[in-house]
């Protein structure tokens, strides 16, 4: 009975409002500049962190390649040429085989007997 009375005591014109997930009442009143400032600051911090990090990596890569290039260029060109020529000499010496067998073949050549009537 008491319960029934309690229920009947609430007016039908004002329906019960659901509880709010976030209560922005205080935010709207006093704290919004601080919270917005903090969020923006964090975003800016992250932005700088990422951009500087990638820039750092890029500069490190450039630095590395520059180092490699400078190392290569410090190697004397003549030594590279020598290496190429060394390979060439070995290849050319091997190719003398072909020249020699061509000459042997030329000196031992036998023609087809075109005068036989077979």
């Amino acid at each position: 009975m008491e319960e029934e009375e309690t229920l009947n005591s609430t007016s039908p014109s004002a329906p019960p409002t659901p509880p709010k997930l976030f209560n922005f009442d205080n935010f709207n009143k006093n704290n919004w500049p601080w919270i917005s400032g903090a969020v923006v600051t964090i975003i800016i911090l992250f932005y700088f962190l990422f951009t500087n990090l990638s820039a750092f990596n890029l500069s490190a890569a450039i630095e590395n390649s520059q180092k490699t290039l400078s190392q290569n260029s410090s190697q004397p060109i003549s030594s590279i040429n020598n290496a190429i020529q060394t390979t060439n000499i070995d290849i050319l010496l091997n190719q003398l085989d072909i020249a020699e067998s061509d000459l042997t073949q030329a000196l031992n050549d036998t023609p087809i007997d075109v005068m036989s009537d077979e």
Partner: protein
Amino acid sequence: MKKTKIFISILALSAILLAYNVFAANENNQSGSAKTDETAVLMQKQKTKAVSEIVRRLAFLNQSIEKIQAMQKISSEQKDIFKTEVQSEIDFLNQLKDKINADTDKTVLFNDRKTLKDRYNIFAFLQSQIAVVSYADKILNIVDLMDAQTTDAMVKSKIASAQNKAQNAINSVVALKLENYPKNKNILQENKQLLVEARKELIEARATMKTSK
């Protein structure tokens, strides 16, 4: 009645004579066409053989042209002389090939085959001469490369010896005359031996260069 019998006998005899003549003529014709067929087959075989020899020579001569073009230590004048000689032989052989293919008379074909046979010396001389010069030219190129890479006196002396041999081979072979072939074939063979020795010296010099590094 007697006249009729004589007439019939003459008629029969004439018929027999006529039949015999016709038969004999037919026999002659048959043996004649058989002979013609045999000659045609034989000529075709001779042509095939001659053309094969021409094609073989042309292949070698075309290779010789490539060898001449690749030469680096031979004067351009000498290269032009070689090229002209080889090209003239190539042109001759091409013409002879066309002529042989078109020959219908066995005597003409015989003469063309004989020309091809007699012409062999020109081919053999040019082929051997250019092979010697090309081999020597390659040795001289290697000599230049190797000499620039060593200061070792022993190695240098071997390289110089190989150079002399290659240069002598070129000088000796270029001076040879086509009309003296095959009498001068032994000179070509001697020069081949010289080049084999030069090559051996270069290989030895190269081995020394590698071990001394």
